[in-house]
C-alpha cells in the first residue's frame, strides 16, 4: 500500500507537469465514441503522436459523472446535460462549452416479413411504449392490422438512446414499459428484430444503415405525414421527433492548454467528413460555424 501511494504520488506530479503534451482525456457516450475516435486518430497522425488522446465509453451519464468530477477534459454526449449533472458540475466549479458535432436518427424497425406496417404515428408509438402499456398485439395498435402478438425490442436503460426515445415519445426520459427485450448492444437488437416476424424495435440509424437488407424501416408521423429517416430528413429535422444532435462538452479550464484547444478546433474542422464516414449525419455547414463561434467565445472569456 505504501509503495502504491508513493507510485501514485509520482503519477500525479507527472500528469500535471505534462502540460502541453499531456493526454487529453475523453469519456462519455458510446454513440459518439466512433466520431471522437476517428477525430483522435487523425489528430494523432497530424501531430505525429506528440499529443496523446484517450477515449473511453462509460455512457453519456457515466461520462458526465467523470467530467463533473474533474477527471476528463471532454465528455461525449448523446443527449443534453441534465439538471442534476449541471448542478454537479457547478458545485465542482467546472465550466464547460457545449458543441454539437453531428446528428443521429433513431430508426423504428420491423421484421422484413411484416407486410402491413409502413408508418406509425407518434401517438401510436407512445401507446405502445408507455409505462404500463397493455398493447400486446398489432391489432390493438390499429384495428385493421392482424391479431398477432407484438414483440418489442429496444436498448437497455443505461443507454442514451433509451433516454432520448423515451423523452421524445412518452414525454419523460426513462419512462418506458419494461416488458421488452432489452440489450445495450444494438447488434443484438438487429438480430432480434430480423429473426422475429412479429418484432418492432428501435435503435440508432447507423445500425439500420448497415443492415438495410435485413430490416424493414418504419416511417414516423409526427402530425405532418409519414417521414422515413434518411441523412437528408435527419439533418433537416423533418424526421421528427426522433433525430437528435450529438455533442461534446469541453471543460473550460482545459481549453487553456494549447493541445486541447487545437484538438477541439481540429474536431470541428474534420467533423463534416469523419462524421459521415463512421455512419452519422453531419450538421449543416453553418452548424459547425456556430460551434466555432461558441468555442471562440469561450476562449475569449
Amino acid at each position, binding site marked *: 500500500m505504501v509503495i502504491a501511494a508513493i507510485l501514485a504520488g509520482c503519477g500525479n506530479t507527472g500528469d500535471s507537469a505534462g502540460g502541453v503534451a499531456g493526454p487529453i*482525456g475523453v469519456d462519455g457516450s458510446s454513440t459518439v465514441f466512433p466520431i471522437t475516435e476517428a477525430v483522435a486518430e487523425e489528430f494523432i497522425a497530424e501531430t505525429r503522436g506528440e499529443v496523446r488522446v484517450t477515449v473511453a465509453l462509460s455512457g453519456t451519464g457515466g461520462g458526465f459523472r467523470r467530467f463533473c468530477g474533474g477527471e476528463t477534459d471532454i465528455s461525449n454526449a448523446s443527449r443534453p446535460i441534465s439538471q442534476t449533472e449541471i448542478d454537479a458540475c457547478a458545485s465542482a466549479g467546472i465550466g464547460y462549452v457545449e458543441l454539437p458535432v453531428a446528428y443521429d436518427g433513431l430508426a423504428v424497425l420491423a421484421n422484413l416479413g411484416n407486410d402491413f406496417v409502413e408508418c406509425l404515428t407518434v401517438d401510436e408509438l407512445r401507446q405502445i411504449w408507455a409505462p404500463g402499456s397493455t398493447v400486446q398485439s398489432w391489432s390493438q395498435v390499429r384495428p385493421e392490422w392482424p391479431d398477432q402478438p407484438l414483440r418489442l425490442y429496444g436498448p437497455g436503460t443505461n443507454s442514451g438512446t433509451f433516454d432520448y426515445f423515451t423523452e421524445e415519445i412518452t414525454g419523460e426520459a426513462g419512462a418506458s414499459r419494461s416488458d421488452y427485450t432489452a440489450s445495450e448492444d444494438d447488434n443484438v437488437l438487429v438480430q432480434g428484430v430480423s429473426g422475429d416476424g412479429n418484432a418492432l424495435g428501435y435503435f440508432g440509424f447507423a445500425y439500420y444503415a448497415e443492415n438495410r437488407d435485413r430490416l424493414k424501416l418504419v416511417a414516423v408521423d409526427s402530425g405532418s405525414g409519414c417521414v422515413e429517416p434518411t441523412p437528408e430528413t435527419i439533418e433537416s429535422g423533418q424526421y421528427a421527433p426522433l433525430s437528435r444532435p450529438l455533442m461534446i462538452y469541453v471543460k473550460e479550464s482545459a481549453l487553456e492548454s494549447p493541445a486541447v484547444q487545437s484538438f477541439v478546433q481540429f474536431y470541428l474542422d474534420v467533423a463534416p467528413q469523419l462524421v459521415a464516414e463512421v455512419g452519422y449525419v453531419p450538421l449543416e455547414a453553418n452548424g459547425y460555424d456556430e460551434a466555432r463561434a461558441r468555442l471562440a467565445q469561450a476562449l475569449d472569456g
Partner: protein
Amino acid sequence: MSNVKATVGRFEPRRTTRYTIGQVFRTIFLLATCVGIAALLVLLLDVLNEGATHLSWDFIRSYPSRFADRAGIWAALIGSIWVLSLTALFSFPLGIATAIWLEEYAPNSWLTRTIQMNIANLAAVPSIVYGILGLAVFVRWLEMGRSVLAGSLTLTLLILPVMIIAGQEAIRAVPTSIRLGSYALGATRWQTVRRQVLPMAMPGILTGTILALSRAVGETAPLIIIGALAFVPFVPDGPLDSFTVLPIQIFNWISRPQPEFHAIAAAGILVLLAVLLTFNLIAVLLRNRYSKKL
C-alpha cells in the same frame, strides 16, 4: 418350490442388467464430456472461420482505427499483458500466504471461521462489484488514477478468493503424517511448511492460479468501471499509464454496426485465446517442474 425360488432370487447375479447399467452410465458421462468439447469446438471454428483471415502481423502491431482494415490490437495486447503480469505478481504471494495461514496457523476460532466464510462468499460476488470497489479505493482514495496499477489491484481482489480456496484445497491434500514426521525430526512449523507442505501443494496451487488468472484476463466489466479506455493509441510506459485490455477492445468492435469490425473482433478473440494459452503454458511448465522434484 417357492422356498427355492426365493433363495435363488436373493443371490441373483443379474450380470447382464448390471453390465448394461454400467454401460449406460459410461455413455452418459462420455456424452456429457462431449457436450462441453463440442461447444468449445463450434465456438473455436466459428471464430477461426471469421477471424483467421484478418489475423496478421499488421493487425497485431497496429493501434485502433476507424477503418476496420487498419485497426489493430497492439495497445490492448500489451495492456492485457501488463495487467495480467501485475495481477499475478500481487495475487500469487497474497493468495498463498493467506491459504497457508488459514490451513497451517489459524486457530479454530470464530474469527477464523468468519474469515473462511467471507472468503467463500467473496468468490461468488459479481465482478462489477469489484469494479465499483476498485474505483472507490484505488482510483479515487489512493489516487492511482485510471492506471494499469489500479486495474491490476482490482483484478487481484477479484481473483484472490478463488486463489485462496484453491491454495487451501491443495495444502489440505498434503497428508498430516508428513507434517507429523517433519515435526518429529525437530523441524519448526515454518520449516515444515516451506520444505514439506508447500512443495507438495505447489502443483495444486499453480492449477488454481491458472484458473484464477484465466478469469482475470477475460474480465471486462470491472475494468470498464474503473475506467480502462476504449481508444488508446499508445502502449503503457509504466504501471501508472492509462490502458486498455483485449476484452474491452473486442467488446467495442463487436458493438459496432459495421460487419467488418465484427470480423476483426473475431481476430481479437484469437489473440486473446493465444495470450491465455501462453500464460497457461507457463503455469503448466512450472507445475511440471515442481511435480518432478518430488
